[in-house]
């Protein structure tokens, strides 16, 4: 049980040894010589990482060195295309596409003989540069990890490792040294905007919900209903660093005066749900959630609610209607959730990535956060990059990084020597960035200005072989399916649009069809919720 700030600080010091080796330190706990980190994100789990762990445990047992090597299953490292991925510390040797039959070689040569197995190590796609560790890989070099700082570094199922990396220190600071209004002011000053895609200033949202603290029942909610196809930022944060979201929601609770929170997660994310639930249970056991946290008068409880696969539930009012147990249909705004949200009470609703930034902002200050990014978009943004790209995976860059840097430097370019055609952002309701605009610095306002949107961070790359009309049809098909049906312009209009596109694909398009479609799009947008 941790019931005072001093106890938390003492725990942090005691646990530090568990993770120091991963920062290159040669200090070790007892007999442990090396840490082997195996990615347990959804991507690597699908490509067979659980079997790697089993084999590794067996081989270490046979060789009699099971007590010298610590195996850690982490969240996503980011390089999903090369999964399953494994890192050995303190060297930081990066093994990619490891198979169970490779394990014996790695154990003999590297873990016993201290000679990394070169043939199994990750090689840069360009030239014969041989990356020796994470910081040396092009994929990681340009990245700046704030929301993902613990993903692929700690064991998400072990609260001690989170505490060792400054976990819950921000909550402790907020509860014992700051007033709720100071917390809100710090978030406001940091310039943090909603990472779910809307880009609304987070501090402002909190301020609107902060009236009548202590007199009205309020809620804090987290949107983890990541519905955009090809987007897996929020899932990776929940899988890799669930405590960061819990800590942030408790901070939000203190700021607005709420004692209860809900996380709405897609049911399609079983690993994320399992780890979040385990993290909530651990936090409760340690007294970091529940009654009178850190001996103050602040109490906070957190529950998980599962979505059931409805795209529209990513919209805030629909999400809340769904938590209440109904069809997830949006309601008109105003009233905004800050006034009348979940169960009719004032509610703050933020997305997972937004929350993941909060503890860092309160720990390091608004100025630190505001020093990253562009004038109106501060901080970093996590992207899930997929489609026709070499390094499919998860990355985090400062706002203002250009699409070219993301695709050609971090992403490693387009495979098979093909030409880049467009990048799709913002999911089905977003847009495509054509090759001519590839040097646009990515931030909220720039993307809106070119008729696209930031969205939640899904970035699908398309090459010369992809047909844009077909892609448009694919998204319209999705939209027709997922229209909740409440507003007629959307329900009927999207279907009419699809019919026109079908006609064009069948080779019967007319010039006027384009004007007709554009006009209809404007009507749908302005006349639906």
């Amino acid at each position, binding site marked *: 049980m941790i019931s005072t700030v001093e106890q938390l600080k003492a725990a942090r010091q005691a646990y530090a040894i568990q993770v120091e080796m991963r920062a290159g330190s040669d200090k070790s706990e007892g007999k442990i010589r090396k840490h082997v980190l195996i990615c347990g994100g959804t991507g690597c789990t699908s*490509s067979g990482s659980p079997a790697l762990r089993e084999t590794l445990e067996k081989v270490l047992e046979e060789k009699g060195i099971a007590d010298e090597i610590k195996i850690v299953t982490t969240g996503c490292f980011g390089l999903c295309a090369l999964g399953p991925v494994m890192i050995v510390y303190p060297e930081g040797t990066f093994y990619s596409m490891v198979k169970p039959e490779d394990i014996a070689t790695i154990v003999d040569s590297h873990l016993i003989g201290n000679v990394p197995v070169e043939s199994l190590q990750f090689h840069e796609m360009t030239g014969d540069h041989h990356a020796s560790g994470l910081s040396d890989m092009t994929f990681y070099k340009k990245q700046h990890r704030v929301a993902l700082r613990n993903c692929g570094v700690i064991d998400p199922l072990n609260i001690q490792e989170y505490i060792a990396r400054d976990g819950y220190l921000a909550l402790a600071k907020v509860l014992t040294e700051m007033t709720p209004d100071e917390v809100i002011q710090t978030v406001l000053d940091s310039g943090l905007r909603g990472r779910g895609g809307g880009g609304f200033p987070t501090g402002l949202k909190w301020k609107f919900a902060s009236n009548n603290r202590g007199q009205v029942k309020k809620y804090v909610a987290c949107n983890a209903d990541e519905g955009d196809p090809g987007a897996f930022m929020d899932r990776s944060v929940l899988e890799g660093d669930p405590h960061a979201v819990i800590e942030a929601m408790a901070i939000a609770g203190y700021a607005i005066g709420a004692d209860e929170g809900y996380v709405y997660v897609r049911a399609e994310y079983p690993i994320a749900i399992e780890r979040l639930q385990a993290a909530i249970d651990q936090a409760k056991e340690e007294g970091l959630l529940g009654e009178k946290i850190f001996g103050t008068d602040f109490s906070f409880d957190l529950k998980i609610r599962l979505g*059931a696969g409805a795209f529209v539930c990513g919209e805030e009012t629909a999400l809340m209607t769904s938590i209440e147990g109904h069809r997830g249909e949006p309601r008109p705004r105003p009233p905004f959730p800050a006034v009348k949200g979940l169960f009719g009470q004032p509610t703050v609703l933020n997305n997972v990535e937004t929350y993941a930034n909060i503890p860092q902002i309160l720990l390091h200050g608004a100025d630190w956060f505001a020093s990253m990014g562009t004038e109106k978009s501060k901080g970093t943004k996590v992207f899930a990059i997929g489609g026709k790209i070499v390094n499919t995976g998860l990355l985090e860059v400062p706002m203002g990084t250009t699409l070219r840097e993301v695709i050609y430097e971090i992403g490693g370019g387009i495979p098979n020597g093909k030409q880049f055609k467009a990048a799709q952002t913002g999911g089905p309701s977003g847009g495509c960035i054509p090759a001519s605009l590839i040097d646009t610095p990515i931030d909220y306002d720039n993307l809106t200005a070119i008729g696209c949107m930031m969205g939640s961070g899904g970035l699908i790359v398309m090459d010369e072989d992809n047909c844009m009309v077909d892609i448009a049809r694919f998204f319209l098909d999705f939209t027709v399916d997922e229209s909740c049906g409440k507003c007629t312009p959307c329900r009927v209009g999207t279907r009419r649009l699809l019919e026109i596109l079908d006609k064009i694909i069948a080779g019967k398009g007319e010039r006027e069809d384009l004007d007709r479609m554009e006009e209809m799009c404007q009507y749908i947008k302005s006349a639906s919720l």
Partner: protein
Amino acid sequence: MKKKLTTVDFRGTKEQEEKLLAVIKKYAGVKGAMMPILQEAQDIYGYLPYEVQKKISDETGVPVEEIYGIASFYAQFKLNPNGEVAVAVCLGTACYVKGSGDIIEECSRVLNVPIGSTSSDGKYSLEATRCIGACGLAPVLTINGEVYGRLTKDDIAGILAKYM
């Protein structure tokens, strides 16, 4: 994804019904409990046939049309049972741009089951799913939950043969 009410006969057991009643009891008085009840009911039966919806309605007092409204609204709730071999092809964007449209058609051809339905003997079902988040392995499909990734159309017959 489009949904139809099932044509397969309901074969619920007494044991399943007891579990369902326990779930409903567990959520008595909980705010917004209908979603978790339906989710756990689907875990028990594998899908949500009319009989199950009716039972939940009788026990909770929520009209069955409202329950059907919820069950038919969310893609996760199934009104049809899965086949013994349940094939699901991801049609998320990352998979789609890498050719999962061709993959699902090939599955449909090999299994002789239309997309989104279950064969009449209940053996095979084929569905298109939303993004399952394994975009790094695109295009992907799952068979009874096992993931197959980095597929080409030519891999399909070989993979399915293992289950036929």
